[in-house]
């Protein structure tokens, strides 16, 4: 069976405020999906909810991977089932070396049955693999000894996310604004890494408002999210249209969703001021 992430009528709130209002999305292995939308439309929320962030409450709907319910699973269980989320703003973990963290993560994801305290994958094998992947991303080997995201530049953080993607080889990967902060060269290298894993081996959901990653990874499907709903789905031509012409046509075509989006942004801004 092709690995399939299926989201049906998903409603999500944070602190009682609704953010997603009935999202439907199906991603199969081998497909590349672009998720686009204006600020505050719920793009990142959808990514975080798929990964199981505890801050969000799912109030209705279903989400399954190969028919297995994801909603009752914690983030680590979802990772072990083959989900991956590349963070828009990865958090620093001072004192934890990237290599140590990745060895632990790779072991757990590749051996979902591993119990706490059991052996990690052999150091030599891990190092060899990590070295290869880092060379491919043109990362200095010294990088692996740095503390996770601690003092990383924006570009370094995004590369480190791609490195994790390459090491963990998920079934479904969500890339949240991974191309922002990367220069053209780094985007090309990141795309090569994705190609190396094999786009046919995983389903990709690329959240972006640039066209950088999409140029190298033309989407099979483009979804437009507005006011917490996917209002339109098309092919690569829709992504191109949004890049060149913006969201005006979408906003006019879906006034209810546009109104909801405006309210969400206003609330966010009010919260930020408070």
């Amino acid at each position, binding site marked *: 069976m092709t690995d399939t992430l299926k989201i049906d009528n998903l409603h999500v709130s944070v602190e009682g405020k609704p953010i997603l209002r009935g999202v439907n999305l199906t991603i199969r292995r081998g497909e590349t999906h672009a998720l686009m939308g204006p600020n505050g439309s719920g793009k990142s929320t959808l990514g975080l909810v798929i990964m199981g962030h505890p801050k969000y409450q799912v109030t209705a709907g279903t989400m399954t991977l190969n028919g297995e319910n994801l909603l009752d699973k914690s983030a*680590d269980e979802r990772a072990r089932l083959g989900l991956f989320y590349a963070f828009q703003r990865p958090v620093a973990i001072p004192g934890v070396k990237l290599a140590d963290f990745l060895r632990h*993560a790779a072991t757990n994801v590749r051996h979902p049955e591993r119990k706490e305290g059991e052996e990690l994958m052999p150091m030599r094998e891990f190092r060899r693999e990590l070295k290869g992947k880092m060379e491919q991303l043109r990362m200095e080997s010294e990088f692996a000894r740095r503390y996770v995201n601690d003092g990383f530049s924006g570009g370094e953080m995004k590369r480190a996310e791609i490195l994790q993607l390459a090491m963990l080889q998920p079934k479904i990967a969500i890339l949240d604004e991974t191309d922002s902060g990367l220069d053209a060269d780094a985007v090309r290298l990141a795309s090569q890494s994705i190609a190396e894993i094999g786009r046919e081996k995983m389903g990709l959901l690329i959240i972006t408002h640039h066209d950088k990653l999409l140029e190298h990874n033309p989407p099979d499907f483009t979804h437009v999210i507005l006011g917490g709903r996917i209002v339109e789905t098309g092919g690569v031509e829709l992504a191109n249209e949004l890049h060149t012409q913006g969201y005006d046509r979408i906003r006019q075509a879906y006034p209810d969703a546009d109104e909801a989006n405006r309210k969400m942004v206003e609330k966010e801004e009010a919260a930020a001021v408070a």
Partner: protein
Amino acid sequence: MSTDILNPTLADPIGEINKYDFHTESKPVFRAQKGLNAEIVSQISEMKNEPDWMRQFRLEALEIFFSKPMPKWGGNIALDFQDIYYYLKPAEHQGKTWEDVPEEIKKTFDRLGIPEAEKKFLSGVKAQFESEVVYGSLKDDLAKKGVLFTDTDSAVREHPEIVQKYLATVIPSNDNKFAALNSAVWSGGSFIYVPPGVKIDFPLQAYFRINAERMGQFERTLIIVDEGASVHYVEGCTAPMYSSESLHSAVVEIVVKRGARCRYTTIQNWANNIYNLVTKRAMAYADATMEWIDGNLGSRLTMKYPSVYMMEPGARGEVLSIAFAGAGQHQDAGAKLVHCAPNTSGQIISKSISKNGGRASYRGLVKVEKGAKNVKTNVVCDALILDAKSRSDTYPYIEIAEQDVSVGHEASVSRIGEEQLFYLMSRGLTEDEASAMIVNGFIEPLVKELPMEYAVEMNRLIQLQMEGSVG
């Protein structure tokens, strides 16, 4: 909820937890009566065949102990001093080789892994079993260079001139109630003398255990690093758990002479019912450096503030300390830097972790005496609180009698962040693994200063402490 790494009924995810919780039957050759009076103190001195000056030293200290009130700050000390054994001698003679060590004690050491460790990389091992060092070996080349490394009891007999010259010069018996108590009833501890210019490039090590129920352990350590010499001394403690109160009250005195260097590393993992009340102080002379690296896990109450008195220009003092307070534990730990001379510098880095109702307090003093110009000192204390039940306090004391000084103080208190946990979990780490990783990262600045085997042990201890701590 596995807050207690010493609880043997727990599942053992690491496979090594049990090595820290076993009780080997040992038959003491001599056991003083419970309680404390001049007769018992004289008896201890007599049992040890001590010279008269040492017996007098003990008896004077006992008077001071009785005259001093209990400290009114720090933690709550619920101890009956008359309900403790003050001396216990586990074997007739100190073993010179491994074969001479009594079988029961060997078993304990085997479980602690000391002989293997020694084979691998320990060059000098001193292990204290209960009150006296029973086994020790020292590499020949050290002895040839004139380095003395022995237990303090032997030093009193074999090197009385050095002991008499330095004992109680750094920490006089009247310094505090527990220093007086130690001076009266001390037993064991390490004695190290490093002659001028001798640099020892591997750590000297000792392990300590408290094994008899209700037995106080009062080791007395004296280290003299002569001019231009250097030494790194490492002490580790893994104590088994018993139900009734037990007292550990050590005194560690260090003299670091002109241009010399001393690092003293301690990892203490006491059972949860032990009062750990320790006085540690070093005097650093011109251009000398003293570093304390101090890790405190376990115990019911720890009160410990390693100190450096910078006596002459160019001296430097550093203290790196970490405390982990679990359920029912209070770690009142910190450091003292006293700048008595100009152009001296110091640094305190203190990290504490409290969880499951534990309380970690940083208590530190930075003092700059009149005339100590151009002093630079920096204090950083970071606290990590793992749940709402736990507590962290900071008591920084700063006394400055000079103008031309730079004293920095930064303090931070944080909780394990939801975003950090989610990040690690989204990569497949369980919540416990993720928490342990964050905590290990938090103490990394200390762990990376430790010799390899201690670093590994420290990480394991933290991991065990962390199990089931969140959620």
